[in-house]
């Protein structure tokens, strides 16, 4: 076997082992990134907001996404309609990708896709 093919085969088998571990631990801390991505995947848009505005949304009954509390520091992540988000003066849009900006935000409001709700 050529060294290159041998390396590719070993890498493939290593990935399978890691995936197996990821799957077994998916309900634990190791699964937190999947759970975060899963929440973000349902959002058509995201905005960083102040803590006060985030608390207001929670007080209005907007559901807090549990995955935010699994992170350190914790994030307060809530979904709200685009119309409600438009009323939040502190709302600062952030691109929907795993950027430093989005991951560093401690208070996030997400707008669901209008066509898939």
């Amino acid at each position, binding site marked *: *076997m*050529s*060294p*290159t*093919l*041998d390396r*590719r*085969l070993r890498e*493939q*088998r290593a*990935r*399978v082992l*890691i*995936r*197996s571990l*990821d*799957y077994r631990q*998916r*309900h634990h801390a190791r*699964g937190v990134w*999947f*759970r975060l*991505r*899963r929440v*973000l*995947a*349902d959002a*058509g848009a995201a905005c960083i907001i102040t803590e006060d505005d985030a608390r207001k949304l929670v007080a209005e009954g907007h559901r807090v996404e549990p995955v935010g509390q699994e992170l350190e520091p914790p994030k307060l992540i809530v979904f709200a309609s685009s119309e409600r988000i438009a009323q939040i003066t502190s709302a600062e849009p952030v691109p*929907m*990708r*795993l*950027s430093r900006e989005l991951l560093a935000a401690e208070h996030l409001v997400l707008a669901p*896709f209008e*066509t*898939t709700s």
Partner: protein
Amino acid sequence: MTFRGRLLATIRAARAVLECPGVLVVGSEVPNLLEPGAAATLIVSQDLDIGVPVDCHAAVKQRLPELLLHFLPSEDEPSVWTPRARDLLEVNFVGIDYRQDPTDAYMLEDDQLPLLVFGALSLVEPGAEIDIEGTRIRVPRTAGLLLEKLVTDRTGVKGERDLLVALGLIVTGGLADFDELDVVYRRLRPDLQHTVRSNLTILSLIEARTGMPDPRPQRAAIAALLRRLESGDRNLP
């Protein structure tokens, strides 16, 4: 020469193998070829992946001498054939074993054409035959190839590019393809189903890249696909 021109010239040059019964074009060029008129506008890639079912290995080997006019096997990786001219793409041979577990991989040792056989390719089923300027090539059914892309672990830049190939299949796929994908997905083991959904969440949040499909306009479709695959499953994390 345009990228499409290079792709079509490569298909012509590899015709002897591509028209061998059982052989499939797999990988990043499939979405390009599935575009109307094989427009090849979705993905810029530097190789053509040729899937060789292990049962067809001997027949493909018999046809390899016809490729020598245009390609040379790479010394360090003989499953890769490099073009003799700059207007052709590399040809990359991969093995398909329909009896294989999707998580397994093995080497089909051979002096002339060794093949790395990826288990995920066992999910790929032969699909339509397409005429590409006189060469009859067979591409996989979209559902199986999409699942092959999504059950494979994708990390780093290469992984993201592979996921964007999956996006190309989502873009070119029709309703019937997604119905089929739903059926095949439900036959997968739970760990593979989880990997599929995990990769879809990554795909949803990938940055746009030059020469690849832009994920941003497709995020709603990806979310809808995720919800469809999750429907009725009570054991999700």
